[in-house]
């Protein structure tokens, strides 16, 4: 079982830095992966659709968490960077004719460059001021996309073909799952490794005390821009996945509301935690679906209730964030740790 004798002792640096600290955690993640692979065979397309949305959201949220949670730079531009990725992938696949496995990373790189550019003010601006600067990025990018008609198709957007893998079009939820799942797993693993390496430690020091970090020889400009670039790369990949999913890219998919939603995901999940990003993304995707489900159930018995639930769905979003900030400011990730700790000692906790 998950026993580590009276504390978690390590005899070597390799063990201390290991990705999976115990055999048990290795087993758990293995079972979880097997479950992820098995799930689509057991579910109908609606639930696979929800899984797909979660996978896309996980990529975007993990990216934002690297920037906001780990480096402490608040960004309200995640939606716009996703738009850059989506339009990048759309343009590259429809005009240049790149296949999806080149277009998606390329779109990520484009988004990373744009993100790094809009990250430049972060050297001088902090906190609220920086969030307003990134808010400007959101509006500037939306404005440019509407105007740059030859590339983005303007307000009508781009219509692209489904991604093709050896001639098989990825045109339904089941097939898309096999595109989104490996990407999400790889990107999450990558993020976990980034934050436990030199770069990640630099990010943490920038967040905790940037003066001390600079005194220690950390190049603030370099690391802040890196954080923006990595985060936007993730946003770009998430955006391009979304583009391949719906195959129609319009700027209306990536409004300020999307940015706010991603910010809420990492707040609810837990700032500065990769696991938290996954929890947050899952939670915020499932919440409206669950409310809709309740509304449908209620509509059968009490037609009037369904209208209230419709409006309630909007309120629930705000309510959940407020409740989390009040009662669990460190997010679902902390709740998860508490649950784990509880079971570790059960039934003899003190």
């Amino acid at each position, binding site marked *: 079982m998950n026993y580590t004798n009276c504390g978690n002792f390590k005899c070597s640096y390799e063990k201390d830095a290991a990705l999976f600290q115990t055999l048990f955690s290795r087993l758990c993640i293995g079972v979880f992966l097997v*479950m992820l692979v098995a*799930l689509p065979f*057991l*579910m*109908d*397309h*609606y*639930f696979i*659709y*929800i899984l797909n*949305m979660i996978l896309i959201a996980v990529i975007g949220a993990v990216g934002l968490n690297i920037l906001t949670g780990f480096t402490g730079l608040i960004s309200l531009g995640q939606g716009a960077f996703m738009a850059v990725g989506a339009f990048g992938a759309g343009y590259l696949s429809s005009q240049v004719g790149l296949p999806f496995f080149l277009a998606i990373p390329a779109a990520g790189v484009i988004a990373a460059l744009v993100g790094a550019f809009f990250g430049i003010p972060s050297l001088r601006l902090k906190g609220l001021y920086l969030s307003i600067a990134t808010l400007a990025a959101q509006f500037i990018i939306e*404005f440019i996309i*509407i105007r740059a008609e030859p590339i983005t198709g*303007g*307000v*009508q*957007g781009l*219509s692209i073909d*489904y991604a093709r893998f050896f001639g098989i079009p990825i*045109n*339904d*939820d089941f097939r898309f799952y096999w595109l989104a799942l490996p990407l999400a797993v790889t990107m999450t693993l990558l993020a976990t490794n980034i934050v436990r390496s030199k770069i990640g430690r630099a990010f943490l020091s920038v967040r905790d005390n940037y003066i001390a970090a600079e005194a220690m020889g950390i190049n603030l400009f370099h690391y802040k821009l890196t954080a923006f670039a990595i985060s936007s790369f993730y946003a770009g990949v998430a955006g391009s996945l979304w583009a391949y999913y*719906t*195959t*129609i890219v*319009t*700027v*209306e*998919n990536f409004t300020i*509301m999307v940015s706010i939603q991603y910010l809420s995901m990492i707040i609810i999940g837990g700032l500065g935690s990769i696991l938290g990003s996954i929890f947050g993304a*899952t939670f915020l995707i*499932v919440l*409206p*679906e669950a409310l*809709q*489900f309740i509304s*449908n159930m209620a*509509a059968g018995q009490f037609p009037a209730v*369904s*209208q209230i639930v*419709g*409006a309630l*769905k*909007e309120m629930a979003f705000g309510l959940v964030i407020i409740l989390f900030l009040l009662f669990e400011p460190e997010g679902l990730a902390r709740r998860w740790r508490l649950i784990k700790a509880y079971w570790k000692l059960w039934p003899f906790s003190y």
Partner: protein
Amino acid sequence: MKKMIVFALGLLLVSQGVFAATVKIGVLMDESGGTGDVGKPYGEGIKDAVNWFNDNGGINGDKIEMIYVDYAYKIPQAISAYKQFKRQKVVAVHGWGTGDTEAMVKFVTEDKIPFFSASYSQHLTEPDKAPYNFIVGPTYGDQTSAALKYIKEHGKDKTVAFLYNDSGFGRAPFFPHGEEKARELAVKLVDTQVIGLKDLDATSQLLNMKKADPEYALIQQTYMATSTILKDSAKLGLKTQYIGLNWTLGEKLVELVGDAAEGFMGTSGFAFWDNEEVKGIQFLKELNQKYHPGITSRPVNYIQGFSSMYVLLSGLRLADKDYSGENLKKVYESMKDFDTMGLTAPVTFTPESHAGVSAMKIYRIEKGKIKPITDYIYAE
């Protein structure tokens, strides 16, 4: 664990299954989001159309079951609702906005489910791009054409300005269609101004427009910005005659603007509640007396919703119990001069065009009532 619960819920849903002869229709509407003010009455029109059909023999004896979802004008929620519809095996869907309808064009095409919507966007009417999308109403482009034709006939200077908001909805009628049509009809486009959908002040834009002094100005907005424009224009004493496209003209505008709305003109493919000479309006008044005795007046959006759903369901009736997507498409495309009791011009779908209505009237607000001042104007 969460996934297990989701899975269990899924099983529960599936096990409810399908029984009895019902025809399922999915309806996606915005009641609580950004366009809720017009979405809610539109949805009521849809509901009444379904109720009326169910009380009058259903679809050749089959009962209509409507699955109604308020998606709050959010595209991901619209898609998720659509996936639900698909699972519940709906035969057709009635949707709402431009962004979400366009986001689902590929899905709908793949699944072969006829999809009606309230977005009067040109490219939803082209079957080579969107073979399963239909609209009942004149496209924004057609409305612009009709308004420009009116200007050509009645104008003295024949100058026009475009007032719009910077979104897909706002730009659709004018760029490039409106510009080209104006050139073709020799109506001179002298100015364009951007006014946000929710702006409460348009003074600076209107002052700029005053310099060009257009005889007419076309407005593509919703009630809110339109009321701002009309109020500010009255304040500044501008002489320009405004002509709004369909989302600007309604009873709500009269309510918001009051006297300054007097003389405002608009294009509409749909009749208004005050047009008692129209057979369909009489019909709706009786219908409302029966279903909603307290209600004495309905906004135009209600009539839009009713007409659109009326056409959708009538098509299902014509399909003679073969509700496969291919057959429904064929049935709709064979609808020619279908009579909506005068609520719209006769509806015609062809394999080349899925814009059901290509004719509209121009209306004017006179003493707070919306009256038609022209007969049907055809766009082409």
